[in-house]
């Protein structure tokens, strides 16, 4: 039956090729919309969990690094958290502006003071990590290495508290590049360096035991919400967000994206249905005489329905296969445009080609193909045999 359907489609190769291309475009758009609808959220969640830290603690009323506000008593809170057997790691982070001399001017750097034993901000690409309480080491991002030419083992000058316009530094420190790292939350091209938290505090003259954020890694995922709740009770003056809370907030901000995706996806599905229905209706009309003959020689109504649906399924499958490739290519292209927005973490993607999303889009199109074939198939099966043969004979 599939072979017969395939051969039938070769009767009008150009017409069917154009229809398949139309279905492919609809399939590509649907796939892109399905990837867009959930992709950014999944990508955000994946990014947040890339080092397994499920909880972020930030100053009250803020999101991590949303403002320049800092937490008081960060080191002691972080130490208390590390004492909890349910927590495998916790580390405070303090952001600050650092500079690197570059000829006559200064190169601004995003500095992060970390506790290396509990940091969830970077992964080491080469060299070694900072040691706990390291007062002479620095780790640099790839973009810093590219711009400055710094290599692991180099001794470099870091300037703090400066007025870039005047090129005047308030303090300077010579540090040894311990390694090159990949910053997980940095924007594309962002020049980020990391030093130990006490050194950052000393360099930026941050008052007291302050941090921008504390990251917490819980041993068992199912205990994350309970631990978050306990931290809220323990430190009511801070904002405690689990990754699921952050993702939920993010999802709220993405409502428009999802609605847009849903509308465009539905439209593309309807376009696909209309294309298949139109083509099969024309095909059935052209072949009514042939269908009446098949019925006359003993092919059942269900046999006719199966034959028409098989042609619809083949068209949809061919369109799906091309549409899948087209969708992935266009998603990559569109993702390149959208992720080039300044300030957006490089790890964020708008279109995530999840196998489940691809399967959902393909399944939706196949079901749509079945629906699209239903009317022409029913019409073919109900065609009056004798009347059709009479018309054919005249």
């Amino acid at each position, binding site marked *: 039956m599939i072979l*017969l359907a395939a*051969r*039938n489609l*070769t*009767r009008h190769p150009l017409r069917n090729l154009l229809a398949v291309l139309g279905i492919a475009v609809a399939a590509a758009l649907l796939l892109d919309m399905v990837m867009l609808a959930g992709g950014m959220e999944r990508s955000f969640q994946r990014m947040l969990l890339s080092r397994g830290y499920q909880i972020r603690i930030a100053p009250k009323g803020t999101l991590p690094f949303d403002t320049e506000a800092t937490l008081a008593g960060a080191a002691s809170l972080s130490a208390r958290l590390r004492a909890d057997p349910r927590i495998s790691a916790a580390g405070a982070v303090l952001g600050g502006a650092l500079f690197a001399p570059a000829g006559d001017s200064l190169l601004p750097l995003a500095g992060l003071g970390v506790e290396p034993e509990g940091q969830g901000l970077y992964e080491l690409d080469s060299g070694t990590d900072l040691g706990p309480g390291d007062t002479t080491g620095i780790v640099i991002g790839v973009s810093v290495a590219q711009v400055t030419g710094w290599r692991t083992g180099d001794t470099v000058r870091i300037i703090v508290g400066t007025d870039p316009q005047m090129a005047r530094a308030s303090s300077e420190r010579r540090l040894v590049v311990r390694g090159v790292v990949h910053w997980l939350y940095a924007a594309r091209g962002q020049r980020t360096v990391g030093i130990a938290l006490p050194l950052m505090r000393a360099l930026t003259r941050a008052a007291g035991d302050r941090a921008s954020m504390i990251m917490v890694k819980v041993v068992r995922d199912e205990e994350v919400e309970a631990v978050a709740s306990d931290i809220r009770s323990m430190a009511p003056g801070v904002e405690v967000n689990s990754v699921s809370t952050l993702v939920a907030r993010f999802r709220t901000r993405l409502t428009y994206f999802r609605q847009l995706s849903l509308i465009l996806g539905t439209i593309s599905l309807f376009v696909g249905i209309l294309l298949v229905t139109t083509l099969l209706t024309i095909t059935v009309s052209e072949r009514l*005489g*042939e269908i009446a*003959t*098949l*019925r*006359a*020689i*003993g*092919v*059942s*109504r*269900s*046999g006719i329905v199966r034959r028409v649906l098989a042609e619809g399924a083949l068209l949809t499958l061919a369109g799906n296969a091309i549409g899948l490739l087209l969708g992935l290519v266009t998603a990559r292209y569109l993702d390149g445009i959208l992720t080039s927005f300044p300030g957006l973490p490089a790890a964020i993607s708008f279109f995530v080609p999840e196998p489940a999303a691809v399967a959902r889009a393909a399944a939706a199109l196949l079901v749509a193909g079945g629906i699209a074939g239903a009317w022409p198939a029913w019409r073919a099966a109900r065609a*009056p*045999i*004798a*009347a059709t*043969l*009479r018309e*054919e*004979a005249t």
Partner: protein
Amino acid sequence: MSAATALLDARDLVKEFRMGERSVMALRGVSVAVRQGEYVGITGPSGSGKSTLLHILGGLDTPDSGAVSLEGVAFLGLTDSALTRLRLLKMGYVFQRFHLLPVLTALENIELPMAEAGVGRAERQARARDLLEYVGLSDRADHRATQLSGGEMQRVAIARALANRPTLLFADEPTGELDLSTGRQILELFRRLNQEGMTVVVVTHDEQLAQEASRTIHLIDGLIAPVPNPQSPIPAR
């Protein structure tokens, strides 16, 4: 003829076609009985109801009143799928315009009804090759329908009609689209089939074909009329 001995029995068939305000009585109470092994020709002028009678006898259309039965099985009580099954297994059809599937080869066209009847691939291929040999087209097995001449297409259509070894073969103007000599080959094929025991019912304008029949039913205005003398003109309607 007694209905009890008839293979195909049709009683008091009435069929009216409505065309807008107008209605045309195609059959006005026609009764026909066909015995096993008979070769029946149905003749008559255009619009006399020949094809309508054939369609009703073959279970392709239903009469407004009257009844048809094949081997004692009344069509009236059958569901569409049961009637379709009866057509598949007990009746063969040959049409004026052949109606082969153009995308299939001659062999595959013949296999089609057998596949529908659930005959296994090896058996249906063997049977289809035998049938092609029977109709004299062994060398055309792998040619697509579009690559065959009119006469060849009609012979493949006859082979297709015989695929499930039917009890009864219906043909509607089987030589209507063929030239004289090709038509003769088809006539010869029907004669041979009938001589081998196949019951054949043919609707035709072709006098030669009608003369081949062991019995002729002549229709005029939806009624059975006396068969006209070939020497005298066809009666005016």
